[in-house]
């Protein structure tokens, strides 16, 4: 069945893409899917493409991430580029349920095949990212989207993990969101590449711009800031102010992803591969794994020792899909 799905994917079947997104988001057969979409079937009409431009948007709930993405979709389409959106919303820690209400603010012509919007539930306690986001980006890139826009849950202050997964991280702020001490706190302001002061048609926009610029300038002038220069601009989805300029800035930023600089990226990939192997072995009821788990559950081996044995077991067995 996966084989058929992958064939349909290479024929650019959007339902197959949607189903594969579901599977990757749930962590099902991720390794196989990514291997499968990476190599087009023979005869498939897929010219080699450049990497997608991946842009993430973060900021507190209600700051206008979805609305802005809706406006940027128009900009991207006006330039003839295709765009996929991954919109993350929180999942209940109690019920596991989620209300995904972002795409509601992203109107798209129903027959426009150059846009693909998908809502994702992000489990609590893992930052603001839906699980397997890096894999989902690779999947959409393989489908051929020129631009991938990611809307985070909007955890606000701690949402820095996403930076490593994307080319550009946009932080949205709005008027009346606290005094200038907020901007001195470590975190988001340090990792953002672009700071967009949204709802600039409301009073207080100039003041927040001055505060943010002053905070950033302090780091630079004192030689404290290790971060690259940040672009700050005022925008308004309501009036349209700055939207076009924002897209021009985002489109001109150098692509950060794909540069093989961070050992952590490789480590993350290794983690994912181990997780996929464990899931397969567990589902298949592999006998060595069951013996190891039983010995550990009965207290015959210490946990650290069992964990090491588990790693060895997972990497020694050839990866096989059931």
């Amino acid at each position, binding site marked *: 069945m996966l084989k058929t799905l992958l064939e349909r994917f290479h024929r650019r079947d959007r*339902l197959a893409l*949607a189903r594969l997104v579901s599977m990757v988001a749930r962590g099902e057969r991720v390794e196989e899917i990514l291997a499968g979409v990476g190599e087009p079937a023979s005869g498939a009409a897929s010219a080699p493409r450049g990497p997608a431009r991946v842009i993430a948007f973060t900021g507190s709930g209600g700051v206008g991430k979805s609305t802005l993405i809706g406006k940027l979709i128009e900009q991207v389409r006006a330039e003839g580029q295709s765009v996929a959106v991954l919109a993350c919303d929180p*999942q209940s820690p109690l019920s596991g349920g989620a209300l*995904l209400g972002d795409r509601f603010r992203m109107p*798209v012509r129903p027959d426009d095949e150059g846009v*693909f919007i998908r809502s994702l539930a992000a489990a609590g306690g893992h930052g603001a990212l839906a699980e397997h986001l890096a894999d989902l980006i690779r999947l959409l890139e393989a489908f051929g989207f020129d631009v991938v826009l990611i809307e985070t849950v909007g955890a606000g202050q701690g949402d820095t993990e996403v930076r490593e997964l994307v080319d550009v991280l946009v932080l949205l702020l709005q008027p009346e969101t606290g005094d200038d001490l907020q901007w001195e706190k470590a975190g988001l302001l340090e990792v953002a590449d672009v700071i967009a002061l949204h709802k600039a048609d409301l009073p207080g926009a100039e003041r927040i711009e001055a505060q943010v610029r002053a905070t950033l300038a302090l780091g630079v002038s004192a030689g404290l800031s290790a971060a690259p220069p940040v672009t700050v601009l005022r925008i308004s989805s309501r009036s349209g102010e700055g939207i076009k300029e924002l897209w021009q800035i985002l489109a001109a930023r150098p692509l950060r992803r794909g540069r093989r600089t961070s050992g952590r990226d490789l480590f993350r990939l290794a983690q994912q591969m181990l997780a996929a192997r464990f899931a397969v072995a567990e*589902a298949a009821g592999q006998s060595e794994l069951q013996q190891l788990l039983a010995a550990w559950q009965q207290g015959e081996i210490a946990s650290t020792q069992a964990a090491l044995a588990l790693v060895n077991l997972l990497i020694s067995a050839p990866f096989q899909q059931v």
Partner: protein
Amino acid sequence: MIEPHPLRVVLAKVGLDGHDRGIKIVARALRDAGMQVIYAGLWLTPEAVVRTVAEEDADWLGLSLLSGAHMTLVPRVLQLLREAGLEHVGVIVGGIIPENDIPKLLEMGVARVFGPGTPLPEIVSFLREHSGASHA
């Protein structure tokens, strides 16, 4: 081999009808029952709804209509779902639907019509009971 996963339900209002109180309450009930609810919004065309169902890989589509246009819009949505290869998606309808129209909608392929006053657990258990084994 695959763990059960939460049901994905698209909720939408089609046509010229701004009464979204009911659909939001249903959205909340399904969320609290552990489902992933994609709220697609109101004033949608049947084409936009079907596109959402496709992109979201939904298991169910819930349509709310209080405008009286259900005998025009619901068949249109069902037809577009079939044309898009989405006949596996179950469709439920809520809102103001006259008694006489309910059998007709069911015959067209609607799984169930839930009128005003339906206890919310009834909708939850209906979706659970009529979904495949791969769902939680």
